[in-house]
């Protein structure tokens, strides 16, 4: 068994893979932002008292979480085409990943909202604070402690699931890898390199999110130094 390392293949493939990495980052960023923005109303809808609002959302979230992402991508790319809606591979990819992100993020957001002590809701209601103010200014900021670690996991999941988009030819890193393999015929080297790049990406995201996690505390502490009073305007007894 003669063994060889093909360094030329590595040199040839690397720029293409880096380009793919940039595309992966772009697609995942888009899906993350949309997932977070859309995830909040979905989470709130699921917590609603009205089943008209709750049930369709429950169905959506359960459907997205209990089916493989690959199948979702096929439905959006090939299934919609049967209905006459033909989407470009990139648009379809971002759409599929965003829908998936929305469903998954909404569950984390829901958990985070539920982790805030009920007394906060009751106190705010008693003070006559309106619903959206309540959520935006009181509940969500306090849910960040739970939310940031949970969302970090979700974002890592989105990055990993984005690899499946290569099957519907969305330009991202796994698609770039297939292009490189098609030209260089060195699948082991190429896919190993791609795995390392994904690993570097996810590790970086985890490190970054850890900084984000610490930020509220830093802002909080700097407020303390400035003499800001963080106590609530009234005493709330649980």
């Amino acid at each position: 068994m003669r063994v060889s390392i093909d360094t030329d293949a590595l040199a040839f493939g690397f720029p293409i893979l880096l380009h793919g990495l940039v595309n992966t980052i772009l697609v995942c960023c888009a899906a993350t932002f949309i997932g977070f923005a859309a995830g909040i109303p979905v989470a709130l809808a699921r917590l609603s008292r009205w089943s008209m609002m709750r049930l369709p959302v429950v169905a959506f979230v359960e459907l997205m979480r209990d089916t493989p992402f690959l199948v979702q991508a096929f439905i959006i790319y090939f299934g919609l085409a049967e209905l006459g809606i033909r989407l470009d591979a990139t648009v379809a990819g971002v759409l599929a990943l965003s829908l998936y992100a929305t469903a998954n993020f909404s569950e984390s957001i829901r958990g985070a909202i539920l982790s805030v002590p009920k007394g906060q809701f009751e106190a705010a209601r008693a003070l006559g604070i309106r619903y959206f103010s309540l959520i935006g200014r009181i509940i969500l900021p306090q849910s960040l402690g739970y939310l940031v670690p949970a969302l970090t996991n979700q974002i890592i999941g989105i990055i990993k699931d984005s690899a499946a988009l290569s099957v519907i030819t969305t330009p991202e890193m796994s698609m770039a890898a297939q292009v490189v393999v098609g030209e260089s015929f060195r699948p082991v080297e190429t896919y190993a390199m791609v795995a390392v790049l994904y690993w570097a990406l996810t590790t970086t995201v985890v490190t970054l999110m850890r900084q984000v996690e610490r930020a509220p505390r830093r802002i909080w502490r700097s407020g303390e130094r400035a003499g800001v009073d963080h106590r609530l305007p009234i005493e709330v007894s649980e």
Partner: protein
Amino acid sequence: MSAEAQALMHGALFTLEASVVGAVFGIMIAVMIALLRQAALAPARWIAAAYVSFIRGTPLFVQILVVYFLLPGVGLDLSPLQSGMVALSLNSGAYISEMIRGALTAIPPGQVEAAQALAIPRRWIWLRIILPQVAVLIVPPLTVELAALIKGSALLSVVGVVELTRSAQQIIAVTFEPLGTWAKVAFLYFLMCFALGQLTRQLQRLKTTGLAV
């Protein structure tokens, strides 16, 4: 049942089988990793930790392709199904090893200390005290992992394993009806994973009502 429905059911059964086998081998690999993590030798601990970090930080899609193309190089000529199972098991093993790690920290250390004070041999402490509790603790997360395996098995279609997703592609190539076929496929996956999700919920309820540890 029409030929198409039969093919889909066949694919779904295959998916289930592949997932269960992946979970079983995953548990075996996970136990090995968990033991490595407790090893006296620091390099062994590092390898185990790096392995888990690598699997959790890279897409299953890429792992499947690496295993598929790497194995012949190490002299293992496996079929697409076999290399797919290896990839699923290796992937599962990492996640299950984290569950075992979590379960181990949930066991009060006082139990081990008491057992050592009573001069119970190490093997017995592991087999009779720790492992049974770990086994019970990891059952709910295992059902979650099984659902993840069912969804992950869809990626095996890329190396040609004829499970549910590949079966759908074969049918669509002949009937030219992607939407209907994928809808049925999504429904089948949903049935399997949703049922598992309900099982998870029941198991967690049992745990909190005090039936378990």
